[in-house]
């Protein structure tokens, strides 16, 4: 029993769930329990989007220091705008639209890795520069017209069964699958190995370049998927719809217990962290605080959670 408990305590993702639960309790006790179930449903809906972009970001971050994808918001916008325009509110176009959204993501990911590998630009700057170009492409393509999603897609994105959003359930299955990919497949193990020691991984004969390439493409694909679903959820693609997911994707990954130094990742933490971020904002809104105090507390609580969860003495 105690061994099971201490094994649980050692899980890096535990703290994000503890934090999320504590915040939910605080909110529920403030409102006297009114609407606390609805809050959880809403939190699951919005957490879905954070988790989906964070899965891709987590794989990229796990590749090691300096690896991060800043083009996620632009990719989401491009994928959302292009797929909405091509589907043009027609239900039969839903699957082709999805393919196009994923294709946009894959294209951006490929371009990103091209810059990183061929021009040897640090990933932060490479993905930042490409995100400017991708965003321009999205602006130019959509011409500021907001096209509604096909009704069937909108229904799917907003459907709730027994208080659980259908989309969140699908995303949970996807998270579980990606967890298996990370821990049980050669691809996932290679990503982790590169993050722990790229030189050793290369000397061991692992296909370092190919795996890094696939990881960036996968991150783009997840961003494309999220852009597609978010457009369906919120009634169309907006040019700024990805903006908040840049910081969210990184924060969720790290609060979830994945090491920023790379080589050490876990997927369950993403859900805890995404719920924590949403519930935190909800709690501060419920308390009726002003925008300034809300932001200060958000920042302070993020830092406190990080300091509690990932603060460990320098290893080696």
């Amino acid at each position: 029993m105690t061994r099971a408990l201490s094994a649980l305590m050692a899980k890096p993702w535990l703290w994000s769930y503890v934090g999320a639960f504590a915040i939910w309790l605080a909110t529920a006790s403030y409102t006297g329990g009114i609407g606390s179930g609805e809050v959880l449903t809403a939190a699951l809906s919005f957490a879905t989007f954070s988790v989906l972009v964070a899965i891709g970001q987590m794989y990229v971050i796990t590749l090691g220091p300096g690896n991060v994808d800043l083009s996620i918001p632009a990719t989401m916008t491009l994928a959302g705008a292009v797929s909405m325009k091509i589907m043009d509110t027609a239900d039969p176009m839903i699957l082709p639209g999805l393919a196009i959204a994923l294709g946009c993501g894959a294209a951006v990911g490929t371009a990103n890795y091209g810059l990183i590998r061929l021009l040897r630009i640090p990933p932060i700057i490479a993905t930042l520069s490409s995100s400017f170009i991708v965003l321009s492409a999205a602006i130019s393509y959509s011409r500021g017209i907001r096209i509604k999603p096909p009704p069937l897609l909108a229904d799917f994105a907003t459907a709730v069964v027994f208080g659980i959003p259908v989309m969140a359930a699908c995303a949970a299955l996807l998270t579980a699958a990606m967890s298996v990919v990370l821990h049980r497949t050669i691809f996932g193990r290679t990503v982790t190995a590169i993050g722990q020691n790229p030189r050793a991984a290369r000397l061991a004969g692992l296909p370092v370049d190919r795996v890094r390439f696939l990881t960036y493409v996968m991150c783009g694909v997840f961003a494309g998927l999220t852009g597609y679903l978010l457009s369906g959820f919120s009634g169309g693609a907006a040019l700024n719809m990805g903006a908040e997911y840049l910081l969210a994707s990184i924060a969720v990954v790290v609060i979830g217990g994945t090491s920023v130094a790379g080589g050490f990742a876990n997927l369950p933490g993403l859900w805890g962290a995404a719920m924590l971020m949403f519930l935190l904002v909800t709690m501060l809104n419920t308390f009726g605080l002003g925008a300034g105090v809300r932001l200060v507390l958000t920042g302070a609580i993020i830092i406190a959670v990080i300091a509690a969860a990932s603060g460990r003495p320098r290893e080696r």
Partner: protein
Amino acid sequence: MKGLTVAYLRMALPALSLALLLVAIFWLQPRAMSYVGLNLLLNLALPIAFATIAQMLVITVNDLDLSIGAFVGFVACVGATWLRDDPMLGVAVLAAAIIAYSAVGALIHLRNLPSIVVTLGMSFVWLGLAILVLPTPGGKAPDWLRAAMTFKTPLLPMTLFASAALALVVHVGLMRTAYGAVLRGAGGNPASVQRAGWSLLKVKMTMFALAGFFGVLSGLALVGLTTSGDANIALRYTLLSIAGVILGGGEFTGGRVSPTGAVLGAMTLTLAGSFLSFLRLDPDWQIGAQGAILILVLALRVLISRAEART
């Protein structure tokens, strides 16, 4: 001999790209080639240069500051309100902000936390504080600040002299002094710096405090130019400053940075915006072209590095 030329080329690349951009601007718009024209073009370069230097100091010790944009906005808000109404309070708040920056450095070091996330959290804190200080855009810069920023120097605009002085001071401090070498060494090989008896904690706190100091200068310069404050005024500085450091020849790890390059990188980024508006480019593609310029300059650097490796 040939290797030497290539090495010089690499060092000169930030200056060359800036010169190239200037020539292109003058060619497109000859009227920019005057005191007033240059002043308009480079007006906003000084705050960006200060922020870039702040970012560079943090990058020197292998960290990254994602809060610098929000911090500059906070300083601008304090500058437009308390610094004018109650100078003592204003100065005290800014000093406290620098101490807070230093404390963030200490926290990152002591708990071995990822700087990206801690500074990300701090960016919310600074933005929130800025909104508390100045809920809606407004306020007014102190007259002395306004006068300092609009001061007309002979021959060339003040921005150029100030930027040159900034580059010189930081270059001497970081590249030419003994403690500067320790500071850079803490990015290059922290373990050996520690074994040599230097406190890494002190190094981190010093670097973050200095970053806070230059962030304060950036915010004050900005509010002196714009005359009023706004919490969101400088959010884009975070990414601009990182890009400026890299454009200027700095690297994310290993303490390899260049103060002169960082200042030139900041000016290049400022001019890139003006260049694109002179090009009469479709507004939709302006921001994309900025990305393309960044990629182009970095690609040039790779070509030069390869030539360097071959010789």
